[in-house]
């Protein structure tokens, strides 16, 4: 079941198209990565999901229902461009923002107390935001975002502004929220956090969706059948041993240990590779090299650019 569904969303500004028939579906209780380079259209899509702006065409569904104004109380949003009233006190401000999301004063106070204790920030209640450091402000902002226990949480670059310790704290919090049943849309440039957190992703480039699917599937799909072999023995013997079904991409030694990166061609299997080299060298390890999301991101986005350039020259 999908918590959120966007169908063929188109958004134009003046002569510029921000979203060109983009569709995404966010599964319930999952973390969905919304990826793309700067200016790809991610923020436009996120603003449409939050009903800050509307699409020119396309359909949006929340929990199976057509997206409506009252759904915003079920959505939590941490924008990339975020901040708080600098002159307002932390507690008062958090209460205000929670009440704007439909919580009663009592309920908001109760929950705020819980979260402030959990994050060990109770002493900040009467401080003005401007008295806090940037990282402290981010903590308050995160609490405010999740206080109304949204079913769908949209986090745009949530880790920016956090030191590694607090980033980890937030990461664990995100995972805990997911465990409790929250669905999360996670927009970021940080590909390592995508691999760590996301179940599914969609990659948007130049207003179009160019890749989607589960992280596992995508990585599988983008495998290049390349292996890293760790062995001891004669490197020349190793080079001689591999046959034409292999391409030696790189080799080097570290002390007695030798390392080689081998790409298998023509559907050759790692077993065949092992059979070929085992008589000549001592194999200590064999590992498939799986492309990182970072590699996939770069290759997808730059490929697209190449295509466009070749179109130009024709």
């Amino acid at each position: 079941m999908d918590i959120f569904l966007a169908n063929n969303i188109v958004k134009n500004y003046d002569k510029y198209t921000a979203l060109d028939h983009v569709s995404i579906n966010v599964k319930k209780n999952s973390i969905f990565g919304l990826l793309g380079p700067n200016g790809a259209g991610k923020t436009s899509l996120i603003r449409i999901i939050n009903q800050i702006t509307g699409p020119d065409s396309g359909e949006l569904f929340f929990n199976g229902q057509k997206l409506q104004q009252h759904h915003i109380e079920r959505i939590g949003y941490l924008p990339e461009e975020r901040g708080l009233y600098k002159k307002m006190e932390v507690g008062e401000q958090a209460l205000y923002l929670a009440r704007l999301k439909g919580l009663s004063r009592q309920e908001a106070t109760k929950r705020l107390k819980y979260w402030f204790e959990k994050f060990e920030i109770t002493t900040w209640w009467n401080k003005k935001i401007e008295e806090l450091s940037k990282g402290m402000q981010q903590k308050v902002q995160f609490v405010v975002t999740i206080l109304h226990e949204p079913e769908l949480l949209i986090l745009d670059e949530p880790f920016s502004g956090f030191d590694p310790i607090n980033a980890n704290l937030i990461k664990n919090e995100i995972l805990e929220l997911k465990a409790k049943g929250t669905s999360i849309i996670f927009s970021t440039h940080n590909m390592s956090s995508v691999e760590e957190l996301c179940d599914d992703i969609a990659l948007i480039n130049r207003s179009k969706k160019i890749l989607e699917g589960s992280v596992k599937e995508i990585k599988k799909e983008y495998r290049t059948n390349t292996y890293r072999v760790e062995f001891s023995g004669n490197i020349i013997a190793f080079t001689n041993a591999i046959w034409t079904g292999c391409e030696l991409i790189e080799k080097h030694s570290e002390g007695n240990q030798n390392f080689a990166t081998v790409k298998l061609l023509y559907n050759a299997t790692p077993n065949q590779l092992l059979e070929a080299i085992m008589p000549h060298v001592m194999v200590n390890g064999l590992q498939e090299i799986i492309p990182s999301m970072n590699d996939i991101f770069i290759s997808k986005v730059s490929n697209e650019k190449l295509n466009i350039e070749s179109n130009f020259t024709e």
Partner: protein
Amino acid sequence: MNKIFLIIQREYLTRVKKKSFIVMTILGPILMVGLVFAQFWIKMIPEEKQNILVVDESMLFNNKLDNTTNQTFSYSKNTLAYEQNNFYKTNYNVILYIPSNIIDAQKIQIYYKKQPGLGMQDYISTIVGKKLEDMKLMASGIQANQLASIKTKLNVTTTKIEKSGNFETKDNEVSMALGFIAGILIYVFIFLYGAQVMRGVIEEKTSRIIEVIISSVKPFELMMGKIIGIAMVGLTQFLLWIILSAIGTTLVGNYFIKDKVNVDQIEQTFKANTPQSAAFKEMSTDKKAEIMDSFFEQVNLPVMLFSFLFYFLGGYLLYGALFAAVGSAVDNEADTQQFMLPLTIPLILSFTLAQNVMTNPESSLAFWLSVFPLTSPVIMMVRIPFGVPYFDLIFSMLMLVAGFIGATWLSAKIYRTGILMYGKKTSYKEIWKWLFYKA
């Protein structure tokens, strides 16, 4: 609706709790009361006694200048040079030198130790002049009482004959002043609190909280909540100023009266502050009573009060929405200049043209200015004391309502796009495009 109330509440409370609000609220009346009473104080300080030595070469004024409580004239038989040399040996403050050719030259000279006040100069020139006049009259054989009967002071009453045949006399300085003051109040309120709306919007933009909030409420709700909240701050401040000023004036007044200050003196100082004070002072008490009577007779007080509230709020709401749009289009206050111009020009124009409208209340300029929504709040208040046909008034009010709706609609479109534009210098062309973006 509930959320708009929350926004109004926040906008109101954060501003009312600010130190600057509290300071201004207390300081305003203190300044007002202080200003009023400083004038009494100055009036109450007894003027220094002036001993004036008259050196009269014309021999015309011997013992003829009247002494007052503050001025005593003595007459010297010596030459001017002699008296000048001995000036510091005597206790005279001033030497008044009247040359022998006074009648032709019409010149007198005052020598002093310490700069005498304007009042004394004035007094001397008046009484010497008066004496000269009398002497000239005598010389040409005209009696003083004859002259008095010739001198004419004309009173003009203006009466309008309406189509229906009714006569209507408009001779009302008090209500004119009242209308003018009402116009100024509206002008000040719009400028002060309209600018606050703009600053509030800019604050939300620069602190980057805007996107958080409009993921909870519609931009329109936020904009209207802010405008209404700030209006209530303004009304609170004005109300507190009125109450505190009244209390302050009464308290300080009581103190002064206990101090055996002549109540008349206080009254006079008050009157000295009104533009018509000179004329007012000269009027007999009967005439004054008549004016007050006719004021209540002629000015429909409920209409005036209702109009004031209507234009006060209507004008503010109209401008508030436009100021909000300006705030949304820029990143900081320094960039507001170019967009402020179309707002400040009609406002300042209405203020400067108010004088013109007062002299010509039924001109077509006055009519159109009092109908055009950007100028009507100030101009109509100035016009009302002269009697405005109900048609004009209702037309103008409808135009203001229409203007407000139009301005809010326009501003809401600019606002909802503008608040999400960061780090980009906005141009009029850009804003024009925003009007056509789909929500």
